[in-house]
């Protein structure tokens, strides 16, 4: 081993420290700074000077203090024990830190990401003398009731399995040995380490081709996200970005959820921590926590670790994708990540581009979202994995011309635009149906087993969206000349559009039934609304007064269908019989 490189602090300015005597150090190497042993990462090299972003508060650090190069890049530990964990931005387990430092965060603690004491039962899936390469699955650990953790050969290891054995192991005990052709041997462990700043390797990238069902009606029906797709949720404060992210983390049809709380509120993480163990996965009935990994670097925690948190999150997410799973990563909020970049950049005295953000902002955002996708994983057996990214964006004043929003919209395929106006009316999710979009709409029909039903659903979404667009135009007219000027058919369109908004798009995240709607139920609900519309139109043509139609009691049933539990889904479809029944009794005013 070479002697560790040691430099000296010459400058401290907030989260950035400059050290001298660092010649030979590499970019993105992790260093320990000062007598307090703070963790930092080299972000700029200039002759013998290194600029370091420090992941902990730098108060009390001054010139002359030592800086030690660990000569390793910022990495995460990957292996059994990730699930149900809550980490800070550089993968320190927050639960263990509480035991170690108390309720308030201390400084200088290093703590491994994976528990070193816990034993896991490992079952090999390959036998000795098998040839292996990076990415090959060599065995399994049943990590939680919801997750079989596939143990893979780490990057750079090729050869033949010389030894492998079932048994109970900690993450850094030897589970086997690989012998390379040149005779050198590598120990296999349950754990591997992986640098966070570059994407993990895959065999091939594939185009997304399936919808990731979220149980949120406005999303699934009108603006769906795909497995391996990317989406962004921009909006002013208090419009529901976090609630959308939480709802997705709860109900999304993925195997693994990685939730990154990046520069947001502490209580929101507590909310997840208290709620997820109680909530049941609608598909398996198991607690949702058993498929979740949380990263929490809240707004008051050090800003450099916030910058790192999205990379920590995405690397963990890629690792599960490489096992062949469907993974969804939520980042709340990418604006706080961008602001962390800006703060570091300012302290490095880099030339700013727009709004003070560094010139590389758009490139960093793009390469982050590029890590999403559907892939053919490396190694055997052959398998596909998918990683979807859903990023919240918090533009100043809700202004969508903001640099972070614009850079994000360039790369993502789904845009859920949250509007203050809707949130103030408590129309939630406050996703604007007229400006949002999704490039994955064409896959919605494949969510249905029954092909015809899928096609019908597609047609219904077009019809419903048409009514919503028509509503916007009609309301303009009403504002100019009042309701009187509208034809009965137009009045009906207005009422149907209202019904689509209030009875379908509006979804209360905090209602025990309404919080999740299966795709089948979404179909039935939308069908009721449109069926009522069609029948009413015929009635109007036959001369029935609109006022009579609007008085029908069945409209309340259509509205309350959202509260009918999934198990009683047949009752939703039955509402159409009631519609028929009540329509029959409508009277046409005496036609002469």
């Amino acid at each position, binding site marked *: 081993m070479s002697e560790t490189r040691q430099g000296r602090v010459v*400058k*401290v*300015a*907030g989260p950035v420290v*400059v050290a001298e005597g660092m010649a030979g150090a590499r970019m993105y190497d992790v260093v320990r700074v000062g007598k307090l042993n703070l963790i930092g990462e080299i972000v700029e090299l200039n002759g013998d000077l290194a600029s370091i972003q420090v992941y902990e*508060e*730098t*108060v*009390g*650090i*001054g*010139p002359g203090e030592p800086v030690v190069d660990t000569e390793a890049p910022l990495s995460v530990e990957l292996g059994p024990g990730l699930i149900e964990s*809550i980490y800070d931005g550089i993968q320190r387990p*927050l639960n263990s*830190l*509480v035991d170690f430092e108390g*309720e*308030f*965060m201390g400084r200088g603690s290093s703590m491994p990401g994976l528990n070193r004491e816990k034993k896991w039962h490992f079952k090999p899936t390959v036998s000795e003398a098998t040839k292996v390469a990076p990415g090959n699955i060599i065995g399994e650990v049943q990590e939680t009731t919801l997750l079989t953790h596939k143990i893979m050969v780490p990057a750079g290891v090729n050869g033949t399995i010389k030894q492998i054995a079932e048994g109970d192991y900690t993450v850094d005990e030897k589970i086997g040995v690989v012998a390379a052709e040149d005779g050198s041997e590598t120990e296999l462990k349950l754990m591997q380490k992986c640098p966070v700043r570059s994407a993990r390797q895959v065999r091939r990238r594939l185009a997304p081709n399936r919808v990731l069902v979220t149980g949120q009606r406005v999303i699934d029906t009108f603006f769906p996200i795909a497995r391996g797709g990317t989406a962004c949720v921009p909006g002013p*404060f*208090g419009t529901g970005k976090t609630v959308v992210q939480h709802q997705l983390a709860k109900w999304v049809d993925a195997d693994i959820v990685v939730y990154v709380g990046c*520069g947001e*509120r*502490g*209580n929101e*993480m*507590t909310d997840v*921590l*208290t709620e997820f163990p109680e909530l049941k996965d609608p598909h398996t009935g198991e607690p949702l926590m058993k498929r979740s990994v949380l990263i*929490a670097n*809240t*707004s*008051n*925690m050090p800003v450099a670790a916030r910058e790192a948190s999205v990379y920590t999150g995405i690397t963990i997410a890629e690792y599960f994708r490489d096992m062949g799973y469907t993974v969804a990563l939520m980042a709340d909020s990418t604006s706080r990540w961008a*602001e962390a970049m*800006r*703060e570091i950049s*300012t302290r490095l005295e880099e030339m*700013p581009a727009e*709004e*003070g953000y560094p010139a590389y902002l758009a490139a960093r955002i793009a390469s982050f979202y590029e890590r999403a996708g559907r892939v053919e994983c490396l190694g055997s057996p052959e398998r596909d994995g998918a990683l979807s990214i859903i990023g919240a964006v*918090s533009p*100043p*004043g*809700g*202004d969508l011309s903001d640099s972070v929003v614009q850079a994000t919209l360039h790369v993502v395929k789904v845009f859920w635009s949250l509007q203050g106006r809707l949130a*103030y*009316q*408590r129309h939630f999710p406050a996703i604007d149906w007229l400006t949002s979009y999704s490039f994955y709409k064409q896959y919605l029909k494949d969510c249905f087993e029954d092909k015809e039903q899928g096609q019908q659903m597609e047609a219904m979404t077009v019809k419903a969206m048409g009514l919503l667009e028509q509503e916007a135009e009609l309301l303009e007219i009403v*504002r100019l000349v*009042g*309701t*009187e000027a509208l034809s009965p058919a137009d009045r009906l369109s207005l009422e149907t559009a209202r019904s689509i908004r*209030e*009875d379908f798009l509006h979804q209360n995240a*905090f209602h025990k039934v309404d919080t999740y709607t299966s795709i089948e139920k979404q179909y039935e609900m939308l069908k009721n609304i449109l069926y009522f519309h069609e029948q009413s139109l015929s009635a109007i043509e036959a001369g029935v007064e609109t006022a009579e139609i609007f008085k029908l009691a069945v409209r*309340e049933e259509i*509205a*309350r269908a959202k*509260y009918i539990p999934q198990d009683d889904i047949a009752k939703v479809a039955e509402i159409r019989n009631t519609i028929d029944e009540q329509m029959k009794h409508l009277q046409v005013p005496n036609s002469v």
Partner: protein
Amino acid sequence: MLSIKEYQTVTNISGPLMMVEMVDQAKYGHIVDIELGDGSIRRGQILQVENDKVLVQVFEGTRGIDVNKSTVRFLARPLELDVSPDILGRVFSGLGEPKDDGPAIIADKRLDINGSPINPYARDYPNEFIQTGISSIDGLNPLVRGQKLPIFSGAGLPHDQVTAQLARQATVLGKGEEFAVVFAAMGITFEAAQFFINDLQDTGAIERAVMFVNLANDPAIERIATPRFALTAAEYLAFELNMHVLVILNDMTNYCEALREISAARKEVPGRRGYPGYLYTDLATVYERAGRIKGKTGSITMVPVLTMPEDDKTHPVPDLTGYITEGQIILSRSLHRKAVSPPVDVLPSLSRLKDKGIGQGKTREDHADLYNQLYAAYARGKESQELATIMGEAALSEEDKKYMTFANEFEARYVSQDYYENRSIETTLDLGWELLSMFENAELKRIDVELIKKYMPKFRKEKSE
């Protein structure tokens, strides 16, 4: 032990900043005392160290500081507050020095005013309903213990009355526990500060209050430290003495202006409206100190007050505050003109932690459905109000007219109340039902049918007959 070092090597003074050179062993974030030629002392904090050059921000401003005659003492510690249970009932300056006639505090402890972030895993979710006696808050935007809920106000709006009413009336239902109040005044007028303090005196709450006062004519840079002193006191009371603390920070806009002044003096790239790019992070280190901690009885509930320049919610101060706090109570100038008091602008106001603080066993089972319905009806009524101002009432449909009547009644009876009227949560909820009784049941789509049957006044009457 670190010895205190003295230097007379001030080389440059500009705005609130001062450069000292040839300094050995200075540490980032530590404080200095500056002794002027006339023997008076000012306090500063190290913003940056580079080799032997130290950049200091001077809290009391640099006026009268002289490059030649000043002596700078490096105290080798961050800003600290002396704490003991005796801080209760006391008034301190914006820099934590006793300002009343009382004795010096004999410290049990000295605490770094910057505190440390609460480990998110150690937090306990706030879920205990606080009854403020104000319907527009309790009924629609309930506050819970450990929440941070700011008041967005404007010049000339009655935020002082609202905060005083909050401090006077806030209790946790069923527990009757009273709050200790920590009040930080930043750049507000003597009159406004005195109004609040007098109110505490009248109710006797002053015994359980700690005040940090920086008035409009006190040094502006000091305001950067004031809320941190207040929160350090609050953390001590809450997490070491197990008290429930209500922290009022008034006015955060002045705090942000002080930050802007420093940033401009450092010639940093300005963000929106000249505020520094790190304003969000800086504000978060203040606001995120509210909360509850697992295994501890005490709590910190925070009500920051800020005045929105030009009543503009998208101004960086309210905007970034809203992005950090758990909702906001917005005061409206137009309601104030209509003599609705407190003029709470219900629609854009929000409490994000309400959902787990209300309902059966906490307030009442009908609470959530009821506020959802009140919101929906009021939002629609507001639209009708607007339509009526454009086209005249005559152009409204019967439906629209009904909703407009509702909105007017709602503002006059539900939102409006006396500053000394302390409504119980039952009174507030029942009032909501009474107002909704003008609609057909079928229109109340957001309320469970069973709850309508149970709580709607006409059904209740039938039952009691």
